[in-house]
């Protein structure tokens, strides 16, 4: 139902509610929590990529000063993390809590020291001696898939978690009759979100009640509870998971990790709270990696560049284990689905392999597969444009979905609900001043400098729910979110939600939604989240869905509570409930504004004067609702990005000079927060494009294990952004909202690659920029190739 009055907060740039406490240093992150008697855990980790564990000597460590206990794999042999996909042919992996007979990646935990504090725990950890007998390591996709490579898990046929393929009926016909085709192979470096707060958890176990309480750095408290319940063999009623303030997640904190299970088990064994704070070196080898895709794509098109068919072969290096709750199929599946992108492509043939290797397991990272998919389709569009000698904008305009195309059923079966692709591309050219950029490029060229302009358009599936996730073969279908709204006797409200806010501002945006529905001031609303005791269930915050789904659930719950207000007010004012309107601070009779009750008074009456309530109305102003955005196929946000770069011709170092974004995520609850999400995503995308990569040597040794070697963008690497919005509502969601948390991170790889290629386009040789990140050395290789020296990086 619609609210009774025009929104006061929806759409307003209100300042965030949580900022005061975070700015004062009063945030409460997991590392800040130290219950009485807490012990510190330190994990001893494998320094071999693949080895037989012949023995682990914990004698010296066990008797070291301050040590309470040292655990090895045997101690937790009854527990494991196993996340099984229902896709045909999926091969299961069992991730031990501490390694048993094998280790499968550098960083896998071998032993756990629990001691008085972190200093002595680390001292003792150094005394643990693991006898590891190295085995050949499968460190890359080709090695792992080679027929000669032994399967990494017992009972497996080969090193593919799963292989899938799909082809539209008309593909063969369309591709074989197409007059032109272009093929490219694209590589995305392995990297991840690398939040500034590392992972951490504090596990407590109450021997009296058998209850576990786990404070942990997670985006998905209820799913962690579900996973722990499976891994520990304990019902959910005995597990409370709390995610307090979390210092950035980006997907990396949206998986259950062995360390969380280990801390719970140790807390139970020792009857003491056990706390683990990941150190940064561990983070680089034990927190999940992401993004490493290799795509071979071929576009078939006619003389004017209309795409007739698309073919793609996708391989993703998933590392050693299938992760909970996503399984090892998520990236491959997502890429298969979204690769055709924003274009009117009817015929499609795609195959995808999720490869098991001796690397850190692979989880979610902002955008999940969409950055790689966008990189592929947008690089392909640029190549088609070049092949035909058509402008890059023009080729896109010829193929982009337009107004009449919606709802669009993509060749992979996704239903795009709505969008503004052509308009957003048009708008970004103006916003980013394409004309000016091209003029500057021309001037730069005359002066012997290398300046390039790049662009990309994409569509982002957001707020997809039951319908979508049931097709993904995941063991838990992430359908809905839950919100509970409670008005109290002072007339203030508590909104509890199953999502988590670790920067997205939901503590504020959900308050905005609830305030409008209940006619309250923002200050009268407290939003809480992150504790499994607050609401029954829900998936948490990932996949650009929280504002839509939690926003919808809050709307529904608030409306239910408002109904009670209307009912009681109607009774008091002797009017009909359907004539009551909830306004700011009061509930009044429609058309006669002098007849009203103040909301605060009404709340007090309901709780404290139950004798005055109408028959059948309970003294209760609380409602819990779920929302799953029927039909569940998603609300499609779209955006266009335009950037310019300058390359130092002598060193290959690439600087982003300008970056403009036009995004359409439907109506915005709080545009400032939306912009913050876009900027943050783009900066991470610039990291993907220019800086970030987990490098390994041939033996599977990780080479990027400090911030000196794994480079994240710093302030001087990121330009000022230009941003503008279009607002096409989704027909599927409450308020027409669309998600947008990931979008910023999707396009920068494609945009910057396009810009680098453009910067070299006047040189004699033709180069195809096909590999991220664009390190100076790689760019220099492209420059050499463009100058006719060498063959590229």
């Amino acid at each position, binding site marked *: 139902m619609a609210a009774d009055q025009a929104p006061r907060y929806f759409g307003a740039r209100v300042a965030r509610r949580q900022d005061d406490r975070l700015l*004062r240093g009063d945030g409460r992150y997991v590392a800040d929590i130290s219950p009485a008697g807490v012990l510190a855990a330190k994990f001893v980790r494998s320094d071999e990529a693949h080895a037989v564990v012949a023995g682990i000597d914990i004698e010296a460590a066990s008797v070291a000063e301050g040590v309470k206990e040292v655990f090895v794999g045997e101690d937790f042999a009854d527990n494991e993390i196993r996340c099984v996909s229902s896709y045909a042919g999926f091969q299961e992996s069992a991730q031990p809590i501490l390694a048993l007979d094998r280790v499968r990646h550098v960083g896998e935990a071998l032993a756990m020291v629990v001691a008085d504090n972190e200093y002595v725990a680390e001292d003792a950890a150094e005394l643990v001696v693991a006898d590891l007998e190295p085995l050949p390591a499968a460190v890359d996709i080709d090695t792992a898939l080679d027929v000669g490579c032994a399967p990494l898990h017992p009972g497996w046929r080969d090193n593919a978690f799963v292989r899938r393929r799909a082809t539209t009926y008309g593909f063969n016909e369309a591709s074989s009759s197409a007059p032109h085709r272009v093929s490219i192979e694209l590589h995305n470096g392995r990297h991840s979100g690398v939040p500034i707060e590392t992972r951490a958890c504090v596990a407590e176990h109450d021997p009296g009640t058998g209850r576990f309480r786990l404070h942990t750095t997670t985006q998905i408290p209820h799913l962690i509870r579900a996973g722990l319940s499976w891994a520990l063999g304990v019902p959910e009623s005995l597990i409370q998971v709390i995610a307090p303030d979390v210092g*950035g997640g980006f997907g990396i904190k949206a998986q259950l990790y062995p360390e969380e299970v280990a801390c719970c088990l140790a807390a139970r064994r020792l009857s003491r709270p056990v706390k683990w*704070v990941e150190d940064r070196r561990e983070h680089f080898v034990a927190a999940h990696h992401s993004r490493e895709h290799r795509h071979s794509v071929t576009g078939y098109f006619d003389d004017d560049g209309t795409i007739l068919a698309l073919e793609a072969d996708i391989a993703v290096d998933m590392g050693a284990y299938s992760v909970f709750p996503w399984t090892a199929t998520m990236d491959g599946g997502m890429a298969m689905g979204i690769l055709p992108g924003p274009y009117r492509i009817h015929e499609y043939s795609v195959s995808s392999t999720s490869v098991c290797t001796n690397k850190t397991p692979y989880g979610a990272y902002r955008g999940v597969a969409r950055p790689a998919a966008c990189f592929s389709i947008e690089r392909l569009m640029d190549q088609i444009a070049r092949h035909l000698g058509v402008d890059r904008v023009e080729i896109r305009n010829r193929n982009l979905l337009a107004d009449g195309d919606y709802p669009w059923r993509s060749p992979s079966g996704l239903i795009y609900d709505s969008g503004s692709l052509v308009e957003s591309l048009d708008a970004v050219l103006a916003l980013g001043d394409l004309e000016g950029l091209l003029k500057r490029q021309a001037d730069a060229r005359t002066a012997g400098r290398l300046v390039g302009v790049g662009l990309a358009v994409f569509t982002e599936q957001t707020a997809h729910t039951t319908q979508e996730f049931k097709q993904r073969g995941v063991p838990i279908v992430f359908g809905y979110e839950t919100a509970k709204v409670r008005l109290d006797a002072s007339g203030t409200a508590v909104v509890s939600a199953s999502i988590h806010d670790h920067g997205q501002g939901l503590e504020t945006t959900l308050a905005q939604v609830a305030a409008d529905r209940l006619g309250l001031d923002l200050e009268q609303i407290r939003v809480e989240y992150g504790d499994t005791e607050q609401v029954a269930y829900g998936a948490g915050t990932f996949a650009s869905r929280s504002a839509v789904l939690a926003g919808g659930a809050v709307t529904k719950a608030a409306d239910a509570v408002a109904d009670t207000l209307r009912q009681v007010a109607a009774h008091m004012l002797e009017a009909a409930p359907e004539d009551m309107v909830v306004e700011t601070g009061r509930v009044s009779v429609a058309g006669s504004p002098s007849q009203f009750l103040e909301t605060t008074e009404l709340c007090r009456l309901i709780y404290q004067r139950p004798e005055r309530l109408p028959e059948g109305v309970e003294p209760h102003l609380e409602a819990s609702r779920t929302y799953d955005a029927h039909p569940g196929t998603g609300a499609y946000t779209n955006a266009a990005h335009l950037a310019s770069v300058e390359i130092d011709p002598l060193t290959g170092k690439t600087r982003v000079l300008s970056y403009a974004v036009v995004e359409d995520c439907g109506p915005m609850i709080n545009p*400032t927060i939306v912009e913050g999400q*876009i900027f943050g995503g783009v900066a991470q995308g610039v990291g993907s494009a220019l800086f970030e990569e987990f490098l390994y040597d041939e033996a599977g040794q990780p080479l990027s294990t400090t911030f000196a070697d794994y480079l994240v963008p710093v302030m001087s690497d990121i330009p000022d952004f230009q941003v503008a919005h279009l607002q096409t509502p989704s027909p599927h969601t409450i308020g027409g909202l669309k998600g947008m948390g990931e979008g910023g991170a999707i396009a920068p790889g494609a945009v910057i690659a396009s810009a680098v290629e453009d910067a070299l386009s006047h040189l004699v040789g033709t180069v195809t920029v096909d590999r991220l990140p664009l390190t100076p050395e790689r760019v220099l290789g492209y420059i050499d190739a463009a100058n006719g020296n060498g063959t590229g990086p």
Partner: protein
Amino acid sequence: MAELSVSVNGELTAAQVDPRTLLSDYLRDHLGLTGTHVGCEHGYCGACTVLVDGASVRSCLTLAVQADGRSVDTVESLASNGELHPIQQAFKECHGLQCGFCTPGLLMSVLELAATNPGCGRDEIREHLSGNVCRCTGYHHIVDAVEAALNSVREQGDGS
């Protein structure tokens, strides 16, 4: 064990510490000042930045004993009488934080910048603050906030 007496946020603290104790751990674990965050313990992220005798330092790369006899300021010192410091206020108004984990260290670096280079423009702000990594904001709003904060510092300076 080593004797230690440090003034922290204007109050004298004294303790016996293992000399290997990092200043960051002294602040967080011994004094309960958990506003100072730890993100890397090797000097790169800047989350742990505090001021020692007015100059920014990495508290993860400083032994607590090295602060003996000195004065340390942390994020907890900024707000006074319940009022946010103008730098904090600017961060709030400009949406200069998201998860807030990098924020305390960043605020302390900005405090130093405001004291030593209040005339910085956007590019110089970026250059100066490149030792404070933020993974959430993409920096744009942080630069807005710092620009606004430096303006207000300059105005105060002009006014006095």
